[in-house]
């Protein structure tokens, strides 16, 4: 339901994994195979010479420091900023508005109904059920339009399809109140609260 960038996560995590794996395998080879060590010696000496050359060629006039350091620092800072931005994308997608639009009548103005209306109403309706150990309702934005996510924690032994059907009727009642059909996702889950609570024996 959230707008977590799933594909981006897979790609970036995969890139990091491949790099770490390659470095790790290379270190193992370096420690065990002498031929690899010899190759690394010749290659890295050349590379090191090249890097030193680059730093020497990019000195500030009249000073011993190279401006490549500043570039390196900037690139590192940019990379850190990108990583923070990436983390900030995880689990986004909550919204506050359930309905927002022009009601197309003579009176000017927009109609807005907060997501709290649906959340409070559904939570209240579900709070007294003995077969639920807990319920949370949240409004998310899916493709730019609001949708509700109802998370139910039933006690042990409750039939999920019956529970889902009953919650569906509640949602339908809510739809008539709000005057708009809202897409709903019901997630019937298990957690520590359901695992250690008594089994449902009433129904």
């Amino acid at each position, binding site marked *: 339901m959230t707008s977590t960038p799933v594909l981006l996560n897979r790609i970036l995590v995969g890139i*990091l994994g491949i790099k770490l794996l390659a470095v790790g395998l290379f270190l193992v080879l370096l420690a065990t195979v002498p031929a690899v060590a010899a190759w690394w010696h010749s290659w*890295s000496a050349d590379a090191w010479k090249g890097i030193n050359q680059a730093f020497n060629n990019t000195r500030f006039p009249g000073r011993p420091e190279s401006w490549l*350091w500043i570039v390196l620092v900037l690139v*590192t*800072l940019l990379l850190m900023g990108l*990583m923070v931005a990436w983390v900030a994308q995880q689990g986004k997608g909550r919204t506050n508005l359930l309905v927002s639009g022009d*009601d197309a009548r003579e009176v000017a103005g927009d109609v807005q109904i907060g997501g709290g209306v649906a959340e409070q109403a559904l939570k209240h309706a579900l709070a007294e059920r003995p077969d639920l150990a807990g319920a949370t309702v949240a409004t998310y934005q*899916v493709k730019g339009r609001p949708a509700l996510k109802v998370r139910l924690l039933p006690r042990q*032994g409750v039939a999920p399809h019956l529970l889902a059907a009953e919650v569906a009727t509640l949602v339908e009642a809510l739809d008539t109140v709000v005057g708009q059909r809202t897409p709903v996702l019901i997630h019937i889950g298990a957690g520590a609260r359901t695992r250690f609570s008594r*089994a449902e024996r009433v129904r």
Partner: protein
Amino acid sequence: MSAADKQRVLHRETHSSRAVVATLAAGLVVVLCAYGLLESAVHAIGQPAWLIEPQTAAERLVALPAGVSPLLLGALGAVLAMIGLFFLLNAVLPGRRARHVLNSERPPADPRSGPDADEGGMPGSGGTTDGWDSPAVVVDDEVIASALARQARLAANVTPEQVMVVVSRRQVIVNVRPTSGVPLQEAAVLAAVEAELGEMALVPTPEVRVNLASTGVIGA
């Protein structure tokens, strides 16, 4: 919203978003970058290095097989490779969660009338949710297992401790330990569990297997 959107949401709910692994990876990169910055800043203001001078680090790296014991180097490499493998597998594997979609759709008796026939109904007031009429339902396998265990227990007439149900993607395994001296019909348990599963209409539909333990429980 269309039926395609519903399918997309259901797919996202039954598969891991890898948010935790992504956060771990980002944290790792940030920590490495911060350390590099720290060392170069310390170097720039002319203070002694915290752990290692950048210049010395690079020279050590160039001369690598020398200067470090091969055992330590190999172990370090193995640990790095393991961490890399962890991230890579997390990215490549499908990342299914232990959840099933509960098909609350009406049975496909009514023909599918144009999936996106009335796209863009009135925005705001009375907009239709063509295709996403009934709620999309996702159920944790644990909940399914406890519901099935309850049915199996009722059918077998045993205590809850004598029934254990394992639900995986395509299989449901019901383990029942009968009460000593009380005969137990495997077919009855199977029928009860299958009836309950049939009512749930899970996607994908798992197969049921009932195992009756050869030893009984005394005094249950």
